[in-house]
């Protein structure tokens, strides 16, 4: 008796489990062809609408200047098939990213290192793009008299007098390398209580100089774009020794060599050069970068 009454219950259960399994497998079968037809459509859609990525390694000072906010959209408008991602690091890491092939193209400003990078085979070629200039900024009133000094060497000696702190980037960046060269040319080994080393980007270093009311060497663009937030004034500018040359290098065997080539060609073209030369005119009343591609 008990067997007879229980058996149907068991059968009903089994049947419903099987039915459920059937429904699921049917659903799976039904969705399978959909997925198969979707995939190629998706690929077509990707290449038509979604641009391929170009990774541009550049420096924090270039990023901080705001140039990329104009330059990248203009490039992407000219080449809608590419989307540029900017990674802003120190020149040292930008070059290291190139060596590790983590970037497709570099836009940096340390000419000697860039030439070594290309000579070692990590980059196909290097082209000049533009230059901007460095300025010495410091507390209003220039307590050490850097501006009044006869030449750059005399300015460096005045800084080393220690009347006010000097904040160094100390990060092997293009700006730090320029500072080292200037001290070296004046025969000075910077050290002492007045010589502070931030190890950080231009923006942070300017803020530290402002808080400590000290001097620092900055590219003009970063200083101008931040000057509202700083209690610092330009105390020396215009010397030939304060020029800062930018170069572009496509990385050898990068993920997106075509994109890198297109970017280099465009920034050195008349169109790209015009965008660079126009940047900053509206906001600061003067260009920040001077295009000089050949």
């Amino acid at each position, binding site marked *: 008796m008990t067997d007879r009454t229980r058996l149907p219950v068991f059968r009903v259960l089994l049947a419903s489990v099987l039915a459920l399994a059937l429904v699921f497998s049917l659903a799976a079968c039904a969705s399978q062809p959909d997925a198969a037809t979707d995939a190629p459509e998706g690929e077509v859609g990707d290449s038509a609408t979604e641009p391929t990525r170009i990774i541009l390694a550049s420096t924090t000072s270039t990023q901080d200047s705001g140039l990329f906010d104009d330059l990248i959209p203009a490039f992407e408008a000219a080449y809608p098939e590419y989307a540029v991602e900017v990674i802003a690091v120190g020149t040292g*890491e930008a070059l290291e*990213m190139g060596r590790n092939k983590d970037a497709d193209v570099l836009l940096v400003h340390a000419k000697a290192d860039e030439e070594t990078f290309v000579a070692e085979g990590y980059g196909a070629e290097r082209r000049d793009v533009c230059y901007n200039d460095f300025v010495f900024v410091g507390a209003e009133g220039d307590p050490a008299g850097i501006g009044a000094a006869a030449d750059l060497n005399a300015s460096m000696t005045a800084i080393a007098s220690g009347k006010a702190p000097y904040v160094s980037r*100390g*990060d092997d960046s293009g700006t730090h390398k320029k500072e080292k060269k200037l001290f070296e040319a004046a025969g000075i080994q910077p050290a002492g209580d007045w010589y502070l080393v931030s190890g950080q980007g231009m923006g*942070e270093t300017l803020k530290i100089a402002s*808080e400590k009311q000290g001097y620092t060497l900055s590219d003009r663009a970063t200083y101008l774009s931040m000057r509202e937030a700083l209690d610092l004034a330009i105390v020396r500018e215009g010397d030939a020794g304060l020029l800062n040359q930018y170069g572009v290098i496509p990385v050898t065997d990068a993920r997106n060599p075509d994109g890198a080539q297109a970017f280099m060609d465009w920034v050195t073209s008349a169109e790209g050069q015009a965008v660079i030369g126009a940047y900053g005119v509206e906001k600061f009343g003067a260009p920040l970068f001077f295009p000089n591609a050949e």
Partner: protein
Amino acid sequence: MQIFADALRDGIAAFSQGTIDVWGIVWTSLQTSGTAVFFSLFLGIPAGFFLGTRRFIGRRLLITIANTGMGLPPVAVGLIVAMTLSRRGPLGDLDLLYTRPAMVIAQVIIALPIVAAVTAAAVGAVPREVRLQARSLGASRIHEAILTLAEARLGLVAAVAAGFGQIISEVGAVTMVGGNLEGSTRVMTTAIVQFTRMGKYGPALALSGVLLGLIFLVNVLLAVGQHSADRFERG
């Protein structure tokens, strides 16, 4: 894996040749975070004890605030402390921005809610009867508190470990208020960021190893301390 092998070799070379003042950086980290943990415990344990044991209006709200504080974004703390201490800020006259005291201030603000919340949870878990019995046996309020805290010591150890671990590994706030100045406010985390930015993966990786080892060591010391306290009690 070549990248790790190369970095490791470079890092060991940088350490052994003394090209980088590693121990100065480690010492600065220990001094600032140690001072900050001390102040956090000094303020956070009484606050946590109060929150965990007393019944009063708004207690739930305060506990929720302390728990929110455990997830306080360090960068937000860094920003507010930096703005407050800036020359143009309300406390600009103190000339504290980009100094060690500024880092300690930021770290105390980050660690305090953690210490308070963990303490509150720990003392809250101590049976009410323990405290009532202590009072009935004539213990003063101070004695009662010490007894409760002793019962909750496992939680207090967790509070120290959590607070210290959080602030010694934190980088956003200490960069903003310390400035990573060589020889004064450069700590392990800011130095790691700097070396990475400069492409010097070797020293960055080596310092990360020291940082990990240090946090491990602190936890081991706390665990050992806890264990011997237990044995002392049982023996």
